[in-house]
């Protein structure tokens, strides 16, 4: 007789047995529910194999428990074959060992190789075959040897904990506490079984505490993963914001390039055309008047030929900066092409426009340009026309300015001419090119 024999009044013994059975059922139920919880976690998150292994381990422990201790299964189902029960209990114990080891490998990945788990699985498989195919006297005898195999797992798992702790893995102390409780209760049961200490069987408490510690560990890891996920989301959000700002900047830059003349810094012809059309539409809708002017630098080809293209560029740059500095913010200037420029002045009549243009012309005339040969001054001519909300299209308004400019050039340059119908050529061949 290798287990303790209890004795007392029938009432006390049955009460004792009932109480122990109730407590065991409580723990078995708790372990089973934890198993269900881990299995549910696995279903929600199929990649977490550690949850599946812990669920399997919990179910195996619960299965073993109903055949052990007060043997609840035989109390509730007296006809259940006890030989099948003892085989199932042994099988559950044996299979649970490599599952638990694999669980630790998944929990702390990259610490151990496959040799340990292979050996553990091999030993478990061998013992399982003995349990299934041999009589109980045989597998009970080999069970003692298998207990030695189980004992070898303890330092192995301790080593995994040690490496995980050194590596800085989270939640290792919680795992160690759970495993230590499992070991202590296991040691208690062995010593109690042998009559060395007078306590009680506590394996179910040990399993429950171990599994509960793992659930704390899982919760701790979920929190860490959640925090990491939040951080990733935040980083992503910041990266997107940064990238959006960069793209906006690039877009603005491209937009600026698309509507700016690179040499003079003035708007280019395409943008000038758009803005002129907008301004004409505005005058047409809200009333008022505006002045449009085309400017042409006098003898620009001669300047290029005499002083070089760099000097020509200087002239263009100067006129660009002159327009930028001297015009109102509401006025508009653009390089129309070559040495020609477009200007328009919103809410301005012809007289006011001419005053501004004359002022610009005098400023430009007074500027001395320096070349390799000698200093020189440059003039420009202009033609201007007004728009008071009539039916003229933008091309027509520009044509009027062009006629006036042509006339200014024809009548001696360095001057401005206001458009009138008399300036229109009689035939198209007389139009300025």
């Amino acid at each position, binding site marked *: *007789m*290798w*287990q*303790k*024999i*209890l*004795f*007392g*009044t*029938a*009432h*006390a*013994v*049955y009460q*004792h*047995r009932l*109480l*122990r059975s109730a*407590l065991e059922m409580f723990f078995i139920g708790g372990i089973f529910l934890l198993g269900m919880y881990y299995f549910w976690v696995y279903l929600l998150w199929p990649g977490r194999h550690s949850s599946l292994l812990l669920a399997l381990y919990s179910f195996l422990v619960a299965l073993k428990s109903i055949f052990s201790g*007060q*043997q609840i299964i*035989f109390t509730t189902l007296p006809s259940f074959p*006890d*030989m099948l*029960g*003892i085989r199932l209990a042994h099988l559950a114990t044996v299979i649970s060992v490599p599952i638990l080891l694999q669980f630790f490998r998944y929990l702390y990945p990259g610490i151990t190789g496959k040799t340990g788990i292979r050996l553990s699985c091999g030993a478990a498989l061998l013992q399982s075959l003995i349990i299934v195919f041999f009589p*109980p006297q045989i597998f*009970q005898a080999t069970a003692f040897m298998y207990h030695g195999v189980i004992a070898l797992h303890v330092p192995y798992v301790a080593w995994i904990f040690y490496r995980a702790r050194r590596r800085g893995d989270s939640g290792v102390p919680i795992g160690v506490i759970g495993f230590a409780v499992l070991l202590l209760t296991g040691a208690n049961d062995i010593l109690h*079984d*042998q*009559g060395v200490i*007078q*306590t*009680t069987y*506590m394996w179910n*408490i040990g399993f*429950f505490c171990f599994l509960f510690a793992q659930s704390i560990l899982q919760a701790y890891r979920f929190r860490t993963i959640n925090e990491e996920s939040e951080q990733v989301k935040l980083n992503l959000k910041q990266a997107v914001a940064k990238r959006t700002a960069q793209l906006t900047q690039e877009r603005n830059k491209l937009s600026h390039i698309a509507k700016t003349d690179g040499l003079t810094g003035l708007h280019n012809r395409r943008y000038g055309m758009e803005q002129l059309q907008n301004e004409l539409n505005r005058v047409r809708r809200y009333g008022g008047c505006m002045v449009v002017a085309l400017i042409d630098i006098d003898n620009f080809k001669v300047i290029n030929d005499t002083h070089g293209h760099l000097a020509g560029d200087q002239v263009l740059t100067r006129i660009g900066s002159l327009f930028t500095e001297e015009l109102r913010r509401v006025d508009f200037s653009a390089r129309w092409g070559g040495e020609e420029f477009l200007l328009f002045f919103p809410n301005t009549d012809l007289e006011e426009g001419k005053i501004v243009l004359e002022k610009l012309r005098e400023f430009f005339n007074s500027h001395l340009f320096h070349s390799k040969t000698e200093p020189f001054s440059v003039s420009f001519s202009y033609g201007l026309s007004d728009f008071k909300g009539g039916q003229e299209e933008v091309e027509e308004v520009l044509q009027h300015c062009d006629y006036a400019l042509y006339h200014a050039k024809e009548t001696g340059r360095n001057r401005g001419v206001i458009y009138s119908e008399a300036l229109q050529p009689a035939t198209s061949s007389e139009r300025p090119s």
Partner: protein
Amino acid sequence: MLMLLYTFSAYPAPTDHDLRVQEGHISLSGSPSSAILALSGEWNFLPNQLVRTQSESDKWTLLQVPREWSRAVSPENGLELGTYALNIHGLEPGTVYAVHLGEIGAVARVFANGRFIGKTGELNPEQGKPQISFARPVYSFMPARASTS
């Protein structure tokens, strides 16, 4: 921690060193009637022989319980067998007592004062070989006198 404390309070230590079985005897004198005792210690043991009462043999030895008993017997016809016996003193006549065996993993018959009170497993079933059992049975009996064995 609360669960552990509750468990200890729910499971009072089932024995006391003063009540340890010694040389095949244990006395219940002085122990509360509600106490549950672990009948651990030196039981009388008769190897390779099955008897109902201690008076049927004078070849008793002592064997520690709980402990594996296989080494104390020599297999006969493939069977290992023996008889455990214990004298319990201080019983109250008319009170129903119960003995809760541990998992034996064998065939057993239990007697109180030579009277059969229960069994586990079958020694000679129809299959022609013992049918062992791993159940943890509880057997009750009512002693007619203050001591029983």
